[in-house]
């Protein structure tokens, strides 16, 4: 990955392209690359949908190699949803193919002067940018079907649906999976709206004639990959729980803990939880001839995903993840898996973030638009309102905060304008700290790398001290940022937490590939550097300490069954970014 492709959509006479040397980004990837480029090149106070914003796409450090789990693709920009910096990543085939084509990043900047819609085809010899107005307002599934007629199945597609073209703040970017379906999404923060603002409907990555990227030390790399895969396979979470039940394995446990936000965060227990649990979902998938174990990209050994078929045994959608099952399920009082799966498909097709969409619908339910538990109503809102771009659909597609304002709802679960995911911060207060302080807005993955004890980020923390919450969250955010930079799937965090030798194997993989010695300290330093840059961007974009807060209702409304409120003090939250 020694080059960067820059496309100026606003160049006079039509879009222009240039190739630059990757320089410092040659041995970087994922969130490190996107955030560093955005921080350097995008004016923090620009309009997210204007010409000055840039869409940066970057594969992981080991994407396109034989390393397992290395296929996450990152997209960065200034977010139309939060107004701050954004990195959103997804699985699918794009990262592997893009990396094999040799690109460390693609930067899409400017804005066309006309209302033409473009597609970009990239192969090993050239980049072709062409107008294709026939694709206008097509949704992801029919769009990819149509593109496949022209470009075939041996490529990877990155596309936006109608929501992206309409520049809805909840719009996502779809990445095609191994079956060439647009089912994997860079969902959070409205990155699809930025692609829509650049009037780019699809990017087709074609690595025909390209080879796997080769490591500097092939023997060491091979041995490290073997140890790394073994470590992943032998761990109870990555080797058993996730493959068998996917992330939705969490529904029962969160419900039992009283931390499952139900009916727009009114209570922490959902009566219908067992009906939509990962266990119930896996049973149903197998019964209908789908799959409960499936990888979102080739080279994934955990395979937390699956295939969800409808009652007639026909493909409906990929296995909805825990956060999706929650947002469209318990959050909306819906306990029917088929309804949730249909909503997951509609979100993917229209191209909206499943978390933002589900939370917005729950807020709309609280505002009286439809009743909690109304399955048909929820489907109608997404399909007929968001999908058709009606005024109501544009409000919902604008996200939970906009929906709350439109329907005068007091309880709106957002931080920095982004909807809170599926874990109530009153029950698990440590994640509340991450939600409040993350540079990304409320984000469950921002502090996901549970490997802080191994990394010893920030020294040892006394987990029994209440103020340890902030220390833990800080360390988690640094470690997560580092893993995001490698472009590895975050679920590798579990074997890394419990098995130091698996963490060593990951460092060896990176070291053997780039011919360098990597230590835990290097990883931590990278995580801190990226977070500092992101924080600085947000400060210049107008964010202050008052934005690092949870909505007030978390402090004032006790959550049943434990009757807890969020108790971490503002002054403690303000300590999060105090690191040397």
């Amino acid at each position, binding site marked *: 990955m020694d080059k960067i492709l820059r496309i100026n959509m606003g160049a006079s006479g039509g879009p222009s392209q240039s190739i630059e040397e990757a320089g410092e980004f040659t041995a970087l990837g994922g969130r490190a690359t996107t955030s560093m480029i955005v921080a350097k090149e995008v004016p923090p106070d620009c309009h997210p949908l204007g010409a000055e914003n840039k869409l940066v796409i970057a594969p992981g450090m080991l994407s396109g190699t034989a390393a397992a789990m290395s296929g996450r693709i990152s997209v960065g920009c200034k977010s139309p949803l939060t107004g701050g910096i954004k990195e959103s990543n997804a699985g699918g085939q794009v990262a592997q193919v893009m990396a094999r084509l040799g690109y460390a990043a693609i930067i899409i900047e400017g804005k066309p002067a006309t209302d033409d819609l473009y597609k970009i085809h990239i192969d090993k010899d050239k980049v072709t940018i062409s107008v294709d107005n026939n694709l206008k307002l097509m949704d992801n599934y029919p769009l990819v079907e149509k593109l496949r007629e022209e470009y075939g199945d041996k490529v990877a597609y990155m596309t936006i649906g109608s929501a992206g073209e309409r520049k809805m703040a909840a719009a996502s970017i779809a990445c095609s999976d191994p079956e060439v379906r647009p089912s994997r999404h860079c969902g959070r923060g409205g990155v699809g709206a930025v692609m829509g603002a650049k009037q780019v409907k699809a990017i087709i990555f074609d690595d025909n004639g390209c080879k796997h990227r080769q490591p500097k030390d092939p023997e060491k790399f091979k041995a490290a990959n073997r140890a790394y895969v073994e470590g992943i396979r032998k761990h*109870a*979470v*990555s080797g*058993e*729980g*996730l493959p*068998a*039940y996917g*992330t939705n*394995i*969490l529904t*029962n*446990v*969160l419900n*039992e*803990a*009283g*931390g499952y936000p139900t009916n727009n965060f009114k209570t922490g227990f959902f009566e219908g939880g*067992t*009906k939509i*649990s*990962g*266990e*119930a979902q896996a*049973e149903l998938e197998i019964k209908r001839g789908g799959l409960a174990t499936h990888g979102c990209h080739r080279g994934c050994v955990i395979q*937390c995903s699956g295939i969800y078929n409808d009652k007639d045994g026909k493909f409906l959608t990929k296995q909805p993840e*825990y956060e999706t099952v929650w947002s469209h399920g318990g959050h909306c009082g819906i306990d029917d898996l088929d309804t949730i799966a249909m909503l997951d498909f509609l979100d993917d097709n229209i191209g909206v973030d499943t978390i933002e969409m589900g939370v917005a619908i729950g807020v709309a339910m609280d505002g009286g638009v439809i009743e909690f538990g109304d399955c048909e109503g929820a489907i109608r809102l997404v399909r007929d309102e968001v999908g058709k771009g009606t005024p109501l659909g544009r409000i919902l597609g604008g996200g939970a905060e906009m929906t709350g304002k439109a329907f005068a709802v007091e309880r709106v679960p957002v931080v920095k304008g982004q909807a809170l995911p599926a*874990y109530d911060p*009153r*029950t*698990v*207060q*440590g*994640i509340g700290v*991450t939600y409040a302080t993350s540079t990304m807005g409320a984000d*469950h993955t921002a*502090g*996901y790398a*549970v490997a*802080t*004890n191994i990394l010893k980020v920030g020294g040892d923390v006394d*987990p*029994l*001290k*209440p103020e*340890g*919450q902030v220390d*833990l*969250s800080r360390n*988690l955010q640094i470690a997560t940022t580092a893993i995001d930079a490698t472009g590895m799937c975050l*679920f590798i965090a*579990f074997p890394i*937490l419990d098995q130091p030798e698996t963490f060593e194997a990951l460092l060896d993989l990176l070291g053997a590939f780039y011919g360098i010695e990597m230590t835990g300290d290097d990883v931590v330093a990278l995580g801190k550097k990226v977070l500092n840059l992101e924080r600085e961007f947000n400060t210049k974009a107008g964010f202050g300490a008052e934005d690092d807060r949870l909505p007030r209702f978390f402090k004032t409304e006790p959550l049943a*069954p*434990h009757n*807890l409120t969020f*108790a971490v003090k503002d002054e403690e939250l303000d300590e999060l970014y105090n690191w040397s």
Partner: protein
Amino acid sequence: MQAATDLNLQLTLKAHLISEFYPLLQRGVWLPVITGDNVMKLLNNQLGIAEAYVTDRITTLFLDGKAIDDAAASIVKDGSTLALSSAMPGLVGSTMRRGGHLAAMRGEITYHPTQTATIGAGKVKIKLFNMLMQEVGPLLLERGVLLSGAELITLLDEGASSFRDGCDSFALNSQLYPCAELGGKLLTTLAPQQTVLLKVVWKD
């Protein structure tokens, strides 16, 4: 709260039919036990689950909705609910782990041992999640679980075709019947509010 039963039902089933009980096991089943023991003793001594299995495999436990860090110091009272799970993914999943590094993040819902507990006959509701449904479920059903008539009717109704194929025989209050009579016989005998002690004999 000694467990009184109105009916005793014994089913002889093929082993794969354990999956028919998964919805029930997730919602929880009552077990007649001696309460007042700690969680480790209850699982190990009373229910016959090996200590090593409890330590290595049941890594996420909730007693009355509170996360347990020390199974030997957590006392099960009459009427308690004990939920058992293997290791969970995600940050929050990790915080829930028994004695985990991130336990402070869920400090507000951590179980704090109580000193007093009366020892005596009682019942406890056990919920099983994920892999434990298959691994521990058969043991609990073999030992005997208390169901309401309504729960049993739902179970037999939802798994009707599987039970038809995979059931050898059943005994109602010690009287043996062929499985063909399972639905009919029980539906005429059983009222939704009655309590049934269900035991399962597993056949390979």
